[in-house]
């Protein structure tokens, strides 16, 4: 590992009884970027994040965070937004954030709290109890609590869930600002379109095993390729099984087709024409969703926003 690495996982395995949640995962996350952490439900994302946070110890392998193997002071340098939100319901918003900031070693958090509350349009709620907030507001408070200490590394598990589009935009801007200020962000999300727009690199895990990692260009190079989107006049027509189609996933009335290595969009079109009337035929680069679905499989696709 180098001094540029924020997180290094070396052949990390974590088991719970007979169930292996994380299976021999290797991962290097460099400083100063937003890293998308992807995977279907139950793939081992949360366990991996907890391993990085040292909430769990690995059964095998090594976890290095900010250059430290055994935690130590690195906990203060890491902001953590867990998947399951938790705030003291009877505490006031301002007090809650000051408490979380002090826990991270911020000595005079009052002005910092005010700044963040204003930025998220929550200042009027500063003296209100957490229990009076809506789910989205509480989500924002929790997010502020995770990054208020301006950590060097932020682990955010589904920060956009429960947010309306306006607040999602505010959150997105906050993440981009964090990156600009030098914070390394690990963003676990199911929103693949958003991840594609925001993240500088990606890490995909499924059934505890790493399926891909790297920058967008590396992912495209290794797992991308051309995609075809086709829809038929007769919705009953199925293009799977046609020569030159490596995989076909239904998306509403259309199909996303994965083109085999020895085929081209033109050859596939020629194979499709005999099936019946074609309403629409488009070609393009594989999206993150396409790659995700191809790697994880159609069974996981049902739970993924497309």
């Amino acid at each position, binding site marked *: 590992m180098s001094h540029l690495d924020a997180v290094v996982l070396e052949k990390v395995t974590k088991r719970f009884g007979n169930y292996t949640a994380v299976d021999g995962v290797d991962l290097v996350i460099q400083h100063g970027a937003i890293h998308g952490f992807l995977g279907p439900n139950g793939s081992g994302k949360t366990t991996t994040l*907890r391993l990085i*946070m040292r*909430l769990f110890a690995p059964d095998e392998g090594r976890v290095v965070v900010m250059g430290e193997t055994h935690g130590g002071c690195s906990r203060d340098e*890491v902001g953590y937004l867990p998947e399951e939100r*938790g*705030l003291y319901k009877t505490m006031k918003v301002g007090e809650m954030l000051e408490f979380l900031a002090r*826990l991270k*070693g911020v000595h005079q958090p009052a002005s910092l709290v005010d700044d963040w509350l204003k930025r998220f349009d929550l200042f009027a709620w500063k003296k209100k109890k957490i229990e009076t907030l809506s789910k989205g507001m509480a989500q924002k408070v929790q997010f502020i609590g995770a990054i208020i200490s301006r950590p060097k590394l932020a682990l955010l598990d589904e920060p956009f869930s429960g947010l309306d589009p306006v607040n999602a935009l505010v959150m997105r801007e906050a993440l981009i600002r964090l990156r600009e200020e030098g914070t390394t962000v690990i963003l676990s999300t199911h929103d693949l379109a958003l991840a594609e727009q925001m993240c500088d690199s990606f890490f995909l895990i499924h059934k505890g095993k790493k399926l891909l990692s790297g920058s967008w260009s590396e992912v495209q190079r290794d797992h991308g390729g051309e995609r075809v989107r086709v829809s038929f006049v007769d919705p009953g027509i199925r293009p799977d099984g046609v020569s030159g189609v490596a995989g076909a996933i239904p998306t509403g009335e259309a199909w996303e087709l994965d083109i085999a290595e020895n085929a081209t969009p033109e050859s596939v079109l020629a194979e499709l024409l005999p099936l019946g009337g074609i309403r629409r035929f488009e070609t393009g680069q594989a999206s993150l969703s396409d790659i995700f679905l191809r790697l994880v499989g159609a069974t996981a696709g049902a739970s993924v926003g497309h």
Partner: protein
Amino acid sequence: MEKILVIARREFRAAVVSKAFLISIILMPLMMLGSLGVQIALERFRPDEERVLGIIDRTPGKNLGAVETLNLLSGDNSTNKMDPFGDPAGDQGGKKQRVRIKFVAIEPSGTDPESILKQRVSVGDRVRKRELSGFFDIHPDALVTPPKDAPPREDVTYYTDRTFDRDVLTMASGKVLSAVYLQRAACLNPLLLVKGRNSYTPEELSSLIRETSKAGSRGLSMKDLPHFDPATGKPVDGQETKIAENIIVPLVLVMLMFIVIMMGASPLLQAVIEEKMQRIAEVLLGSAQPFDILMGKLLGMTTVGVLLALVYLLGGAFIASRFDAARFLRADLVLWFVVFETMALLMFGAVFLAVGSAVSDIKQAQTLLTPVTLIITIPLFVLMRVIEDPGSGLARWMSLFPTATPMMMLARIALQPDLPLWEPLLGVFLMLITTLVVVLLASRIFRIGYLSQGQAPKIRDLIGWIVKGE
């Protein structure tokens, strides 16, 4: 340490700035009053009982002695039955009394000390045989007003084998003392008796008694039964029993300690379970080590508990001062109380935190709590035996057993002001080690349990968490 203090401060504020704390401040006296009320209510179901009390009146000139005075006041000329200010049938204020007091006059022996002692041993034997419930011994000089500045004198002594004879204290001793003081007044001015019973108003009688009881008298002394020394064969007088010091102070302090432990430590269990249910645990663990969280919570709760106890101690001291009884709350006793209460809260609080972290709801906690509650309660079972004999082997060993040390050692310190310092210090040392071990073990359970959900672990699982750390 900084994180521990941040968490402790939040816990303290959350506990103190809450309705629950205010309610608990009011609730505890209500609980104590409630238990008193229950005892009073239970009196109604007490079987009728006749308490026979002997009176050895050693005052000279028996015709004008205490017995005659009592009879003069009560209008009852029976020599054996003296209930001077009440109804001989025991009906006071229209309420049927479950306990009736019957006095029996006992002819005094010779006036030399040995004869007096022998007689006391002999009457004491009648008490042991349950012929008598106890006996009053009225000093020969009781009717003589002591000179000014003379040391306090024992005028009336009550001998009993009971540690705390409430019936006699409330129903008989005041009357006997009043009779003695009234007779003393009569000795000063025999013409007082000429007026006869009906000529005195209650205010006049009170005034007479007050005047004569002011000077150099200790009032009623209470002693345990005299006996023959088995080694020398000589009669030995009973040892004085001091009810306030020997019963009330240790009992109240130990009960206060127990209640504060239960009221202080139990909410920790509830709080940890709630934090797990509300998913706050993971947020905290993202910022602090499990040990810091555990210690922060412990410190916060302990401060709240000690504050609560001090509020009650100050309240108790204020009330005691109104009744001229504040001297019973010795400064060293209060200090030891704070030391032992603090350590008990830390030790038992850590256990409650560990249990709370290991379960997902209160129902699951019940199974694990049973042995913990039993350990906390055991000292109460032997408390009376320790109070009766604080120097016994049982009392010493119990007070050095770390989980029982806070209550037992405190009771012993209250009862034995001259207890060698090494004993409480050894108790503190052993408790300190135990508390450290308990906190360390609890933190291992806490570290794993705090994030766990679902089925409650078995004892075997908990041991696994402690030993293997997983």
